């Protein structure tokens, strides 16, 4: 008996230390992974980035001719514009719909309907991006040709709609959580002052939940920027500065996906694709940084 007790008290600090160590490792691993990815992507592209690549041309030229025999050009400007334009278009569609749906689900619909909606929205989030690409390639393609009398339906509009459909579930679920996190006492107090449901939402809940709503929008945007397969299939995948929603475009991500399998490891083209990777990494980093600063700014204001 005495021995047993001794053992258990001796074990307790050890298990405690072990668990603490494990949890510590889990936390540190996420940092290691991020730095690891950045390090390896950077290492693959660094040689050409600091020796040979004309960075001015890379950022401003629209000529993307990595496989030309006598006139190789690495101008990614059209790709950058492609990524941004399709993301902005997608957000123009997804933000109003996503936030609207979140407000409806959280504030205006009956509890039963809410459960049904949440299941459907989660289902929507689980659809693989290649399926969205397929829908864009077939269904939406035909629809755009019929509706807009366009020669081809694989356009920025097509990709934008697909990206919007993919971002909406993320925006809805995070925004809904943010609205649900607003204490009910705010709703009661505002209702007691004679405010209608919409006035309560507009004047109290939206300001109170603005951090979460902003996070929802930014995560939706991040999803759009990073998405590859759907835009590869739905946007026409053609290097072009878009003149409108019915232009075809090519994005940074789709370029990496389409070309990386075709290049010889280590040559210039290969390295440029990794430099695009660095660029994407930088863009997402900046978006996250801005989000953090904005949220911090809002907090300080409060």
């Amino acid at each position, binding site marked *: 008996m005495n021995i047993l007790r001794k053992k258990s008290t001796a074990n307790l600090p050890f298990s405690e230390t072990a668990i603490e160590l494990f949890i510590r490792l889990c936390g540190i691993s996420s940092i290691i992974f991020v730095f690891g990815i950045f390090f390896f992507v950077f290492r693959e592209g660094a040689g050409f980035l600091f020796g040979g690549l004309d960075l001015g041309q890379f950022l401003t030229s629209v000529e993307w001719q990595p496989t030309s025999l006598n006139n190789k050009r690495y101008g990614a400007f059209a790709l950058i514009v492609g990524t941004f334009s399709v993301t902005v278009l997608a957000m123009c569609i997804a933000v109003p719909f996503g936030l609207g749906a979140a407000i409806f689900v959280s504030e205006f619909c009956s509890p039963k309907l809410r459960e049904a909606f949440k299941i459907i929205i989660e289902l929507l989030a689980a659809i693989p991006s290649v399926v969205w690409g397929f829908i864009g390639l077939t269904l939406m393609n035909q629809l755009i040709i019929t509706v807009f009398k366009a020669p081809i339906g694989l356009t920025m509009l097509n990709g934008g709609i697909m990206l919007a459909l993919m971002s909406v579930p993320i925006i809805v679920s995070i925004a809904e959580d943010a609205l649900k996190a607003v204490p009910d006492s*705010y709703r009661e107090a*505002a209702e007691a*002052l004679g405010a209608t449901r919409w006035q309560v939402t507009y004047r109290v809940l939206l300001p109170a939940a603005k951090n979460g709503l902003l996070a929802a929008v930014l995560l939706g945007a991040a999803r759009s920027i990073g998405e590859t397969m759907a835009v590869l299939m739905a946007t026409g995948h053609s290097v072009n500065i878009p003149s409108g929603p019915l232009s075809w475009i090519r994005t940074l991500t789709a370029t990496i996906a389409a070309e990386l399998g075709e290049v010889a490891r280590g040559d210039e083209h290969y390295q440029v694709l990794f430099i695009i990777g660095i660029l994407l990494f930088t863009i997402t980093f900046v978006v996250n940084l801005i989000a953090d600063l904005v949220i911090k700014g809002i907090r300080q204001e409060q």
Partner: protein
Amino acid sequence: MTTPMQTNSDNGSQNTPVIEISDLKVRYGDSPALNGISFDVYQNEILGIIGPAQSGKTTLLKVINRTLELTPDTTVEGSVKLDGVDIRTIGDVYGLRRRIGMVLPLPVGLPLSIYDNVAFAPRTAGIRAKSELDEIVERCLQQAALWDEVKDRLDSLGTKLSGGQQQRLTIARALSHQPEILCLDEFSIAVDPVTTMRIEEVLKTLQTEMTILLVTNLVQQAKRLANRTAFFLNGDLIEIDTTDVIFSENPSNQATYDYVNGTFG
């Protein structure tokens, strides 16, 4: 046995009923909250409502401003008349709520600036002119004895005020739509005694302008403020009478005496 109709002492002397409640029954699902209560509330009186927890005091207030309808699965029978009109026939429920100021137990500063907190109800009612809003905000904060403390920082968040200040802010907010009736639900629960005294002074002044329903856990508060006091117990109105009678040596019901004197149960 005392009849609910009593002559009022003190300042609440006009015998005009503002609220007439008859045979009001409320149930949450299957559990009853109010079992058929009837009484009148008179113009410009302070009616103290006392009683232990679960006796239906808060429910009563929620019936009057019809926020009980926001709670699912509730049944209300009987009638509540405001100025002779059954409140359930009032189509504009938001208009009804603006006629009644409500102060809840825990102060709820809306996550807006102090100014916007007080201007909230006027704005929802459609007042847009800055000068008019300014005037309302200053008047209400003055009335709630908060103006001097916050006049230089009307733009800072209402939720950053101390508990007592926030409760005065909610009172200012409740006054902002110039209600005919002010309902206070255990307003002093999160407020220090000194601030409670200040708010009590405020209420005495406000009485000249409106009718006040004061739900309170502090029986002494009812004794200090109320013209009449109602004693609720388990959803029944045990007794309603002038405060002097309720707190005397011989109220009509023994339970009232026990509760008021702290020998209950």
